[in-house]
């Protein structure tokens, strides 16, 4: 098992390298540059040229990449933002907290809703309850995040004035747990609708497959109570494919953050990503890309490890039969 994890981590290094190279090239092919966003158009050309040299933008592209990589590998440094001149690392770290709070809550709440509803839907297949859940989950998947977000803002913030329309705290306020919760309600609803909608279907279909298995009949023949049959024999087997999907849910949430954080002005990674793109802030974007790639790879490795723990057949093949 340990050797397997180590192997996966070593493979991750060339993958990360490839991702940064491709991102760097794509970024440079896009029109616009940081100077235009940074300084006044009235500035004389000589001054612009001096700024470009200072930022290293006049070097050949491969050399710029090489400098960025060298800085990262030798010093573990992601450089300074071309727009705000802050260190990229501290900018990302500062934005990480809000994103993790939002995404973590959405994932946990979404699964807490999806798993029981999915089980119920499967055990009562083709009942009215099943149809209600399946239709609800279909709606949750189908409504685009931004659309549901804007509707919620319009209804609850603009018309009813019950909830704030965005941000993490009131302007000038000092925050606090209660204010944070109030500000989280709307974005969480949007994210949970999506996460729960998607996963109800996965849980339902996975459970249906297991519920048709012969060994559940065996469990019933043993004289086990129905609840025990469903929870111990069916759910645990159904969770194996679900775990994989939950692992893939993390990168999806990370991507969804860009839209949600923009709509609700949530000061997280997604908002930083969008503003960095607008400002052509190359160095910050490289840092964000690296983080995003890392999250995806880490989620995949984590999924494989968890997979091994939920399926004793796989676990045993790693341990090598010793138990």
């Amino acid at each position, binding site marked *: 098992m340990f050797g397997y994890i180590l192997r996966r981590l070593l493979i991750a290094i060339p993958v990360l390298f490839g991702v940064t190279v491709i991102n760097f090239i794509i970024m440079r092919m896009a029109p616009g540059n940081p100077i235009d966003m940074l300084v006044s158009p009235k500035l004389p050309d000589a001054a612009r040229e001096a700024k470009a040299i200072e930022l290293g933008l006049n070097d050949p592209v491969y050399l710029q990449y090489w400098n960025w990589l060298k800085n990262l590998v030798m010093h573990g440094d992601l450089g300074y933002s071309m727009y705000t001149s802050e260190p990229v690392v501290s900018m990302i770290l500062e934005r990480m907290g809000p994103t993790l709070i939002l995404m973590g809550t959405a994932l946990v709440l979404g699964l807490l809703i999806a798993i029981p509803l999915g089980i119920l839907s499967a055990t009562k297949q083709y009942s009215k309850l099943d149809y209600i859940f399946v239709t609800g989950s279909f709606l949750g998947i189908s409504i685009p995040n931004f659309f549901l977000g804007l509707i919620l803002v319009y209804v609850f913030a603009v018309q009813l004035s019950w909830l704030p329309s965005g941000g993490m705290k009131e302007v000038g306020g000092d925050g606090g747990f209660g204010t944070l919760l109030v500000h989280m309600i709307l974005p969480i609803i949007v994210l949970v609708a999506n996460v729960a909608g998607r996963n109800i279907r996965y849980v339902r279909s996975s459970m249906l497959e297991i519920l048709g298995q012969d060994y559940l*009949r065996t469990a019933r023949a043993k004289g086990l109570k129905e609840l025990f049959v469903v929870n111990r024999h069916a759910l645990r087997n159904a969770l194996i494919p679900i775990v994989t999907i939950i692992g893939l849910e993390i990168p999806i949430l990370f991507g969804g953050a860009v839209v949600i954080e923009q709509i609700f002005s949530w000061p997280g990674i997604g908002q930083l990503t969008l503003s960095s793109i607008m400002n052509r802030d190359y160095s910050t974007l490289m840092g964000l890309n690296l983080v995003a790639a890392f999250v995806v790879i880490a989620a995949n490795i984590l999924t494989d490890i968890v997979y091994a723990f939920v399926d004793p057949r796989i676990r045993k093949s790693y341990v090598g039969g010793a138990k």
Partner: protein
Amino acid sequence: MDTPLLTVKNVKTYYPVKTGFMNLQTSYVRAVDDVSFEIYEGETLGLVGESGCGKSTLGRTIIGLEPLTDGEILFDGKPMNFRTDRVSLSKQIQIVFQDPYSSLNPRLTIGDLLAEPLTVHNIVPRNEIQQEVTRLLQLVGLSETAKARYPHEFSGGQRQRIGIARALALRPRLIICDEPVSALDVSIQAQIMNLFKQLQRELGLTYLFIAHGLGAVKYISDRIAVMYAGKIVEMGTAEQIFKNPQHEYTKKLLGAYPIPDPTKRSILTQQ
């Protein structure tokens, strides 16, 4: 031998067929249609019939895995509601399933599989469960080392032994064998059949032995019931059925039964 251990009286198991726009119930599939028989303590009743004739449905109805549409089932002379008493009745009646590959939960070790019914029904005190599991494994000819292993690590014959050990765990009086050997190789079939016979001698078990071929049933049964299209068409001792079949379907079934010895084959084909 006065009260039968199991009495099945006019049992019917129908499945509704729903079709059309409003899911209206239009007709029934009569899987088991008015079946009656008795099994006495210590005997083996063989139940034969072609695929789809309702013999497995009958077996599952008796232990309450399928809802009973109509009729009555008496165990030890007492009428039983097998739908509501499924949990407590599983201690008296157990079933060995046909397919040993799919009927064991792949995520539980053999030790867990066998310990589960023991814990749920409090068959033995908690601290004796491991000894009991070992005893069960030895009873079906497996070693104690099987405990820590998973079902996929065993062969078909071994798995069926585990299936039998699992059925024996609750110390039932009646075991329904739902085609327990038809998924196995012929050589393994004989081993498992012998195991059934040996267990019957040692533990005084009663069997309802379901099979689609006459060979296995002839070897193990005291009496044989022949089932066709949901009904029992003929019932008698093994000798009666083989020597003097009455019903047309029984004769056909006998004609389809291959005799491994060519010198004996001619006797049957003359009939």
